[in-house]
C-alpha cells in the first residue's frame, strides 16, 4: 500500500507548488495510474515516493512506515523503479543489469543469476541467448522488458513506473502492456504508474488519478472516471469518446442476458414459436445435448413452417465468449451485421446472449445514476 497525506512540493525557484496538498492511497496489489498533461505534477508526485524529490511538506507511507524515516538510498532498494528512457547500463550484460539490486543487497550470486534467467523466461526471452548480451544488442521493446525485469528482480512489493512504455512503438507497446498485465496478475505488486495516455490508463489502471496544475482533481476507477468526470477538465482530458472507451472496461457478461430460453434440435417449431412469443424474442438459440450452441431459429421461420427444429435451424454467424470486453462484442456485431450475439463460456457452453440495445442501455445506466 502507498499512502500520500497532504503532500506538497514547492521547488526553490517557483512561486506556485508543483504538487499541492495531494492525498491518496494505492491499495495493496493495485495499479494506480497518475494521469495528466505535462507539467501537472504527476512525475514529481511519483518521484517523491522514492525520495528522488523530497516533499516540502506532507507524509508518504509505504505499508505503515513513513518514507521519511528511511535512509533514502535504503528506501529505494525496496522500491522497483522503471523510467521511460529505460536506463539499462550499457557497460553491463543483461544478466548483470537485471541483478543490480540483488547485487547491491548482497544476494548470493548463483541465486540472483538463476533468478535473472527465470525472469527472462517470464517475458519470453530465451535466457541462453540474452543473458550474456549487452543492452545495445537488443531492440527497444526488448530493452524495456529488461527494464521492468530489473525493477522486480529483488521482488519489491512496490513498483514505481515513470511512463515506462512511452518510447515504444504502438504495436510493441500493446504487446508489452498485455505481457505486463499478465505478469501483474501473478505478482500482485502495488504499482504507481505515470502516463499521459488516457487509453493506456484505462487499459492498465485499477484506479486513475487525474492531476492538473499540481492538484489531484479526481481519483477513481477507470469506469467511474469515464462515466462521471469530476469537471470539464477531466471530461475534456478523457476525450469526447469516453463512453466508447468504457466499452473496453465492461465485460460481455455485464451486458449479457442470463439464463436465456433455449430449444433443442428435436423440439418442434411450434414449441420454439411459443417460447419466443412468451419472451418477446425474434430468435431463439438451439443447443446440443450438453448445452453447446448449435444454431438458431427465427420467429418468422418458426411460424411459417412445421416440423422439427433441426430441419429449419440456421447456423450462427459467430459467438462471443462472456469474458471478452464489450468493445470486442460491438466490433464483432458490426462485422457480422447483427444486433445480437450468443455468448459462451470457455468450454463453448451457451450462457446467454448480448444485444446492441442491452449494451447501450448498460452504458446509459451509469449516466442516469449520476
Amino acid at each position, binding site marked *: 500500500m502507498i499512502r500520500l497525506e497532504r503532500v506538497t512540493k514547492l521547488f526553490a525557484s517557483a512561486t506556485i507548488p508543483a504538487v499541492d496538498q495531494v492525498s491518496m492511497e494505492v491499495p495493496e496489489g493495485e495499479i494506480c495510474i497518475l494521469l495528466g498533461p505535462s507539467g501537472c505534477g504527476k512525475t514529481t508526485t511519483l518521484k517523491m515516493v*522514492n525520495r*528522488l524529490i523530497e516533499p516540502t511538506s506532507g507524509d508518504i507511507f509505504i505499508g505503515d512506515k513513513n518514507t521519511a524515516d528511511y535512509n533514502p*538510498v*535504503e*528506501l*529505494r*532498494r*525496496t*522500491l522497483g*523503479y522503471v*523510467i521511460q*528512457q*529505460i*536506463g*539499462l*547500463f*550499457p*557497460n*553491463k*550484460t543483461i544478466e548483470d543489469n537485471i541483478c*543490480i*539490486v540483488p547485487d*547491491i543487497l548482497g544476494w548470493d550470486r548463483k541465486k540472483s543469476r538463476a533468478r535473472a534467467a527465470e525472469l527472462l523466461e517470464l517475458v519470453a526471452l530465451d535466457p541462453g541467448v540474452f543473458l550474456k548480451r*549487452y*543492452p*545495445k544488442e537488443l531492440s527497444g521493446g526488448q530493452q524495456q522488458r529488461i527494464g521492468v525485469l*530489473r*525493477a522486480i528482480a529483488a521482488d519489491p512489493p512496490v513498483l*514505481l513506473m515513470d511512463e515506462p512504455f512511452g518510447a515504444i512503438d504502438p504495436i510493441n507497446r500493446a504487446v508489452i502492456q498485455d505481457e505486463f498485465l499478465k505478469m501483474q496478475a501473478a505478482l500482485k505488486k502495488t504499482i504507481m504508474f505515470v502516463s499521459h495516455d488516457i487509453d493506456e490508463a484505462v487499459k492498465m489502471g485499477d484506479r486513475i488519478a487525474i492531476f492538473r496544475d499540481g492538484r489531484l482533481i479526481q481519483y477513481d476507477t477507470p469506469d467511474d472516471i469515464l462515466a462521471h468526470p469530476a469537471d470539464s477538465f477531466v471530461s475534456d482530458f478523457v476525450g469526447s469518446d469516453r463512453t466508447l472507451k468504457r466499452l473496453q472496461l465492461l465485460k460481455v457478461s455485464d451486458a449479457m442476458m442470463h439464463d436465456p430460453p433455449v430449444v433443442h434440435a428435436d423440439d418442434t417449431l411450434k414449441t420454439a414459436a411459443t417460447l419466443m412469443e412468451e419472451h418477446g424474442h425474434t430468435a431463439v438459440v438451439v443447443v446440443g445435448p450438453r448445452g453447446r450452441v448449435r444454431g438458431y431459429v427465427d420467429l418468422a421461420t418458426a411460424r411459417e413452417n412445421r416440423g422439427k427444429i433441426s430441419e429449419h435451424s440456421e447456423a450462427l454467424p459467430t459467438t462471443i465468449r462472456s469474458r471478452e470486453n464489450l468493445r470486442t462484442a460491438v466490433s464483432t456485431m458490426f462485422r457480422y451485421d447483427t444486433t445480437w450475439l450468443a455468448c459462451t463460456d470457455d468450454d463453448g457452453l451457451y450462457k446467454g446472449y448480448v444485444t446492441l440495445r442491452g449494451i447501450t442501455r448498460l452504458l446509459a445506466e451509469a449516466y442516469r445514476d449520476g
Partner: protein
Amino acid sequence: MADAVTTIIGFQRLWRNSLLVLVFALGAWAWAGGLLPTMLDQWDDITYLGRQHIELVAISGGLAVLVGVPLGVALTRQPLRRYGDIFLQVLNIGATIPTLAVLALSMSVLGIGNLPAIFGLFIATLLPIVSNTLAGIRAVPPHLIEAATGMGMSPAQILRKVELPNAMFVIYAGIRTALAINVGTVPLAFLIGGGGLGELIFSGIALNEFATMLAGAIPTALLAILVDFVMGQLQFWTIPRGVNPLR
C-alpha cells in the same frame, strides 16, 4: 563478392610486402653508408639512455594519470562541480604554453636534474587526462544516473559501477594522447639535465653527427609507437564490449 575480398587481401599483401622491401632497402642503404654501424656502436648509450627515457615517461606519466583521473572525477562532484569549467579553462591556457617554456620555468624554480624534468612533463601530460575524464563523465547520460539513483545505488556505487565504466573509453583516449605527448616531449628534458634519449638527439645535432642523432630519434619514435600500441590494446581488451566502440 568473394573476388572483391580476394582482391582486397591481395592489395593488403602487396602493400605489406612493398613496405618490407622498402624497410629492407633503407636498412641496406644505412648499412652501406656506414650509418647503421655507427649507430650500433652507441648501443650501450641507447640502452642506458633509453631506460632513463622510459623511467621519465613512467614516473611523470604515471603521476599525471594518478592525479589527473581523480582530479577530473573530483571536478564532476559536489562541491567542485561548478568550478569544472573554470578549471578546464585554466588548464587549457596552461596548455598553450610551449612545453619547452614549462620545462624552463620548472627549472628556474626546482633547479637542474630529474625533478624539474618530471614536474614539467607531469604538467604537460596532465591536461588531456583531466579534460577527457571530465568530458567522459559529463557525457554519461543523465537517465543512467537517474535509474541508478532510483534503484538505490549510493553516489560511490554510481561512480564506480555506472559513471566510470561508461566514461572509460574517453578517459583511456585522454591517457593515450597524454602519453604520446609525454614520450615525444621527454627528449627536451635533456635540456634541463633530465637525461633520456634527448641526450643523443641534441648531441647529434650539436656535433653534426647524423648517426648519433638518429640513434636517439629512432628509439624515441619506436617507443612512442610502442606506448600507443600498448595503450590501444589495453583500451580494446579492458573496456567492456557494451561500451567499447572498437568491438
